[in-house]
């Protein structure tokens, strides 16, 4: 577990954060560029000294301004996967991997090489690797130093958009198979939803919120930070069936069953589904003939009005669901807090890429 409480001033910029990250899971540091995410992880790594505060990892004090403790980076046992990989250009992949090698029965060289599919790369030079290969080597190199905590600073940012999906399963393996505690910096909502359990939202150096991914993603007041366009509820669900004839996965969650068009998912797999607010429509009365497969009854619990012609409506359907509708519709249907209505979610609207096993998938039960 990492406990952090720091304040840092550089010129006009003030960074202020206080949170704890649970062990064996991924905590996302989320925010726009310039929010202070990289500065924050550099402080955890010991590459930047905070003005004041403390950083404690698994009970070891790494930094404490009042006690004048500042452990140098090489003694912090914190692995760091940088945005640009930072492989050593004068060494081949094998020597890069072994650079910080500390023997560990769990994270053993051959095993890491298999896990990250590094075997074919071992004799190659960093400048001959693709962006994705480079990041896999960087991850392996950090893991082989046997860290207590792994920092990943936008590890996908230097990779072509089309190839990012190739790296995500490897990061999921670190979480699920190695039970690594990871602090993952990102400004991409989908990465956070897919990988993280806890998230810390930074905005202009200030910590706007900290909490579970599902909880924070469903908070209307955080929509300006979690991304207006992509905003929407995140549901934890379990696959309970697959309709092969129509190619529909049936996912059960606290509010019922959600049918999603997409590839087959193993029954019992726990998934996290991101339902964007703009893909949800609302309806008074009982819908009858409609092409929409997913219809949930719920009560309006919150309405967020903005300057724009749209409003975000949060419903309780057994779990939170958010719909983005126009102000006109809200007035025409007289939607208020406490009103019961139906929410419609098109089965084809849900981003299939978000249907990946979450951390919970590997836990028994």
């Amino acid at each position, binding site marked *: 577990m990492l406990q952090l409480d720091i304040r840092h001033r550089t010129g006009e910029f003030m960074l202020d954060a206080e949170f704890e990250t649970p062990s064996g899971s991924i905590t996302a540091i989320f925010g726009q560029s310039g929010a202070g995410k990289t500065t924050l992880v550099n402080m955890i*790594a*010991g*590459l930047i000294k905070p003005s004041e505060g403390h950083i404690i990892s698994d009970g070891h004090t790494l930094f404490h301004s009042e006690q004048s403790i500042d452990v*140098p*980076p*090489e*003694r*912090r*046992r*914190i*692995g*760091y996967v*940088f945005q*640009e990989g*930072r492989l*050593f*250009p*004068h060494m081949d992949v094998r020597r890069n991997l072994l*650079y*910080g090698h*500390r023997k560990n029965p769990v994270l053993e060289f051959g095993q890491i090489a298999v896990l990250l599919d590094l075997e074919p790369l071992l004799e190659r030079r960093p400048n001959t690797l693709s962006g994705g290969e480079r990041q896999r080597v960087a991850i392996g*190199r*950090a893991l082989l*130093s046997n860290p207590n905590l792994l920092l990943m600073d936008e590890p996908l940012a230097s990779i072509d958009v089309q190839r990012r999906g190739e790296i995500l399963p490897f990061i999921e393996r670190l979480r699920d198979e190695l039970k690594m505690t990871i602090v993952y910096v990102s400004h991409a909502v989908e990465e956070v939803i897919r990988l993280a359990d806890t998230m810390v939202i930074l905005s202009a150096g200030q910590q706007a919120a900290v909490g579970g991914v599902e909880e924070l993603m469903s908070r209307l007041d955080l929509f300006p930070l979690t991304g207006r366009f992509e905003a929407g509820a995140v549901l934890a669900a379990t696959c309970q069936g697959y309709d092969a004839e129509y190619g529909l996965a049936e996912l059960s969650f606290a509010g019922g069953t959600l049918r999603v068009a997409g590839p087959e998912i193993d029954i019992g797999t726990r998934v996290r589904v991101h339902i964007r607010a703009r893909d949800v429509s609302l309806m008074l009365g009982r819908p009858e003939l409609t092409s929409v497969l997913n219809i949930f009854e719920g009560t309006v619990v919150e309405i967020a009005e903005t300057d724009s012609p749209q409003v975000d409506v949060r419903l309780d359907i057994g779990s939170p669901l958010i719909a983005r509708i126009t102000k006109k519709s809200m007035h025409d249907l007289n939607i208020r807090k406490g009103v019961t209505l139906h929410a419609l979610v098109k089965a084809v609207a849900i981003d299939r890429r978000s249907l990946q096993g979450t951390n919970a998938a590997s836990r028994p039960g």
Partner: protein
Amino acid sequence: MWALSAVETEAIGLSLKVALWAVLVSVPLGVFAAWVLARRHFYGHALLNGIIHLPLVLPPVVLGYLLLVLLGRQGPLGAFLFDTFGVTVAFTWKGAAIASGVMAFPLLVRAIRLSYENVDERLEAAARTLGAGRIKVFRTITLPLIAPGILAGAILAFARSLGEFGATITFVSNIPGETRTLPLAIFAEVQSPGGEDAAIRLVVISAAIALAALIASEYLARRLGRKG
């Protein structure tokens, strides 16, 4: 006409010895000075930079005279060296090596400093997160990455040392077998009647050594490049 006399062979050997020692001693100092100039920010940075580059702009005779004042038997540093270590540098080959080294130092530092500035400091930070202390980072990351610059600087300094004339003749004079390096020997032959043949032989040899040094540096740089 191409047979070398004993005196001439001696001058060649002495030149190589002086230049090699000048380079050997100044490389570690140059690596340190280049690091200070490239990586440290402190009050007086510009002054230090100026002092290191002074030999480039100062007349060699002036520098030779300064060395003589400083390192002569009666000079403050010279007296100290003689009293504590029994070492005399004025009018010896050691003095010639010092004169050559000082004259070549700015060239050496410039080359190494350039390669320092090309080393990505973020790689050094990455090495530290992998458990390497400052010394290991220097040895395993910084040094290999600046090696081509050190090599280039050392070759340049070696060639410059072979050609050193003004500071040497002022500081350690032109003593056959002790301080008469190739340029000084050529000067002496040109000055004496009937010495033209000998002068031409030494000129050709000087050119050959310089060319060999350049070719060797190319070869080494390519090998380093392959490795690095």
